[in-house]
């Protein structure tokens, strides 16, 4: 199958508006004849479900949590970008587009990113109209702050809980449609497979997590809005339940998986405290507006800090290395996430890390507190400081925070075209679930923008085109494909339940995480990746022999749910390693030691790797086939990124 991204022709600024005009429309009275399935109710899912229902489609929405409001979009802290230029500081749609393309290390599509920047302004309007309480200035107008990778203030925020407020806005729009009967909501339902008929997605198979019932649901289109797969690393900032299962099962039914190795490592997370750790907590990137990142200049001083012989405050100014400010004077502490993370790792690798484990650098607010006063700092970041204090038992007003990079977001995901359609007609992927807009590195405050852009302002247009093409003929679950797919799921569940070995699923998950972090994390080598592939294959074989899955299907069974998710993570892990091995260049957060500049900076290889890697599943334990979508840059010049 050829990979046609369907990017409209014409000047960049006109692509989307022209495309919208060219898309087929569904007659208003016909809309109610279409059933749309939306899986996942985060920013992308909730906004899509609500917007489509408003248009008149019948929507069935699914989430595995007990309420659509729990989706992990809720945890996004810092903010959402929009090219409003309310600050009069030189922002524009083109600048947001340019920053995002550059921030993504020139591995995203121009057309998609421009559209994203274009609709970003509508998102803010929409959210404010819903009653989202964004931060405001004393004059009553909206406030902005700065985020990494840009030199303008374009990030809208609601204290450190922007994701929560945006999600609750989308959730309220969804609730309204549930009340109106246009959306039927299924909570505590996990999607376990996609049903395809004649190559088109026509429904899904779900498991009711409370009763174990395996059900079939038919629709004219299936929208996967199921988030990212950061939990393949076991420890990440994702929620415990975040998983790849929906996307992975779709992949196994034919949808290509694009750029799986593009993961974002967030620089400011609270360091790991021990083996018991179940997840990592992010400290918003906005902290880098006022916090200064540093490590001791010498290994000796670092050693003393690690042994707690001295405190951070006792380290003299000339013994400190504010390494981001030193190396990147124009962006300073606000370099993009990948750059900040890589530099922190480098410092730690040189033995200058701090904290008990040595796997941390400082994020220091002493200067900000002196300049602004503790009250101002508290007003800006109070909840983040409290959270840090709660977790570490250290008071960040008195001593610098310890931070270390952690897996936060996955830029890779299901391959989609400009219409957000996967290569399987009728199967769409929105938000973090798709690969589309962030290239090899996502800028801060762009994830919320993309999720809502896809859900509110893209899919309501592009989906209609497909629906108008296939026509409103009713779909139901009577086709044998539903029974067949359901049987596959039942067999799979039974296979999992038959595992009565001697190792818990969490133990496998932790092991997988170690492999991924060690060999497929911030720095990668061909040698390491080859080794990792063999380790993952062995882990997979062992899992299907020795894992323990307790309980039965006909009950609320977290062990069973987790087993299915980890089994999928193991398979995905192998694909990520394949993808990383293939991509013999450094780009974004992904640093190949074989590809660096003489100064040790990441070196991209545009000649050979300016493409999207879309992988096709070819059967169990078969190597996947690589399809390349060439990235064409008509507007921006590919340069080595510099934030110096």
């Amino acid at each position, binding site marked *: 199958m050829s990979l046609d991204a369907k990017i409209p022709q014409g000047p960049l600024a006109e692509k989307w508006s022209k495309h919208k005009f060219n898309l087929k429309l569904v007659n208003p009275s016909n809309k109610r004849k279409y059933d749309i399935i939306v899986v996942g109710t985060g920013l992308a899912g909730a906004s899509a479900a609500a917007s489509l229902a408003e248009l008149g489609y019948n929507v069935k929405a699914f989430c595995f949590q007990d309420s659509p409001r729990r989706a992990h979009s809720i*945890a996004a802290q810092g903010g959402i970008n929009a090219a409003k230029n309310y600050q009069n500081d030189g922002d524009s749609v083109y600048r947001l587009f340019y920053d995002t393309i550059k921030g993504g290390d020139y591995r995203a599509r121009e057309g998609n990113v421009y559209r994203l920047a274009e609709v970003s302004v509508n998102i803010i309007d929409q959210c404010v109209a819903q009653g989202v309480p964004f931060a405001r200035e004393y004059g009553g107008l909206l406030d902005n702050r700065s985020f990494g990778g840009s030199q303008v203030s374009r990030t809208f925020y609601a204290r450190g809980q922007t994701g929560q407020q945006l999600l609750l806005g989308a959730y309220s729009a969804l609730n309204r449609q549930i009340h109106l009967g246009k959306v039927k909501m299924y909570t505590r339902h996990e999607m376990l497979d996609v049903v395809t008929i004649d190559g088109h997605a026509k429904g899904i198979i779900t498991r009711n997590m409370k009763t174990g019932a395996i059900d079939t649901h038919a629709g004219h289109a299936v929208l996967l809005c199921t988030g990212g797969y950061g939990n393949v690393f076991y420890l990440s900032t994702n929620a415990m339940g975040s998983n790849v299962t929906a996307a992975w099962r779709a992949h196994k039914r034919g949808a290509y998986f694009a750029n799986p190795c593009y993961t974002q490592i967030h620089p400011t997370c609270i360091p790991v405290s021990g083996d018991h750790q179940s997840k990592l907590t992010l400290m918003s990137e906005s902290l880098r507006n006022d916090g200064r990142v540093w490590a001791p200049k010498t290994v000796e001083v670092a050693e003393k800090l690690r042994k707690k012989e001295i405190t951070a405050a006792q380290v003299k100014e000339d013994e400190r290395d504010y390494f981001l400010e030193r190396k990147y004077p124009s962006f300073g502490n606000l370099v993009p996430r990948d750059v900040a993370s890589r530099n922190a790792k480098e410092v730690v690798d040189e033995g200058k890390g701090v904290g008990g484990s040595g796997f941390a650098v400082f994020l220091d607010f002493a200067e900000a507190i002196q300049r602004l006063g503790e009250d101002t700092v508290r007003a800006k970041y109070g909840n983040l400081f409290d959270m840090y204090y709660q977790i570490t038992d250290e008071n960040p007003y008195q001593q610098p925070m310890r931070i270390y990079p952690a897996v936060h977001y996955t830029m890779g995901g299901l391959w989609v075209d400009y219409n957000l359609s996967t290569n399987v007609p009728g199967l769409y992927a929105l938000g973090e679930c798709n690969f589309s807009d962030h290239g090899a590195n996502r800028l801060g405050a762009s994830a919320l923008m993309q999720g809502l852009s896809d859900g509110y302002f893209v899919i309501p247009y592009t989906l209609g085109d497909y629906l108008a093409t296939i026509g409103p003929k009713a779909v139901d679950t009577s086709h044998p494909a539903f029974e067949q797919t359901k049987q596959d799921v039942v067999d799979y569940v039974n296979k999992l339940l038959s595992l009565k070995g001697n190792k818990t699923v969490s133990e496998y998950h932790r092991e997988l995480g170690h492999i991924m972090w060690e060999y497929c994390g911030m720095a990668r080598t061909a040698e390491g990746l080859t080794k990792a592939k063999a380790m993952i294959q062995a882990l997979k074989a062992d899992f299907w022999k020795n894992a323990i899955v307790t309980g039965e299907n006909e009950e609320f069974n977290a062990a069973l749910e987790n087993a299915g998710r980890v089994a999928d993570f193991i398979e995905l892990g192998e694909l990520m390693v394949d993808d990383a091995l293939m991509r013999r260049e450094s780009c974004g957060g992904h640093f190949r030691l074989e590809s660096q500049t003489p100064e040790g900076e990441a070196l991209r290889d545009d000649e050979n790797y300016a493409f999207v890697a879309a992988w096709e599943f070819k059967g169990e334990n078969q190597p996947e086939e690589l399809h390349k979508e060439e990235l064409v840059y008509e507007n921006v010049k590919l340069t080595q990124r510099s934030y110096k």
Partner: protein
Amino acid sequence: MSGHMNLTLKVWRQKNAQTPGKFVTYKAENISPDMSFLEMLDVVNESLTHKKEDPIHFDHDCREGICGMCSLYINGRPHGPKRAITTCQLHMRSFSDGETITIEPWRSAAFPIVKDLATDRSAFDRIQQAGGYVSVNTGGVPDANSTPIPKVIADEAFNSATCIGCGACVAACKNASAMLFTSAKITQLGMLPQGQPERYSRVQAMVAQMDQEGFGNCTNTGACEAECPKEITLNNIAFMNNDFFSAKLFREQHAHDHTGGE
């Protein structure tokens, strides 16, 4: 290992809503004070799994205090002994070695037990569905800066909007009342200009749904406010009361009466 704790847990176990439940005692050994409460339960569950026993079921997801999925009534308090945090943010350093910890699910007629410590809080969703929104469709809305909102109003609205829907207010209330939860959304939208057109229909619809779900009545005892992980105050309830009486006694608007889509 030094500094590690051994604890006795009395945990409510219940297979499903239909089966009666009981307390079962477990040992939690070698617990680091740096663990979160849920990580401590993870440790217990790992050992149960190794023994091929059914792990303790509890709801949890983000583990950073924002999704509202975790619950647990710990030693007589929702989300445990510390103020303004959720169970997932509670660390074992808040307990002492040798302590016995009793863990119960939220108790409310409106929150039936699903399994062990997990309850069904969909009543909260239904209250929101009854009117916890501004009826605007996607697109066609005015520019975000066209309506200035005084900072103090925006901040106050935010304080109400910060509710995570965990249900600790219901769990803490001696009457299992959901008024703090319901009033938080009513207050948020009632304060903002965007919420004004439906202000008085919203409050009636949401209160009616709240009553229908079988929650108790507020007696202004303040346990909800004390236990709310997001520190939402009783003033929200007063705001709701005020709007409700105003709507019922002095205004024309009725509860949301939607006739459906197109």
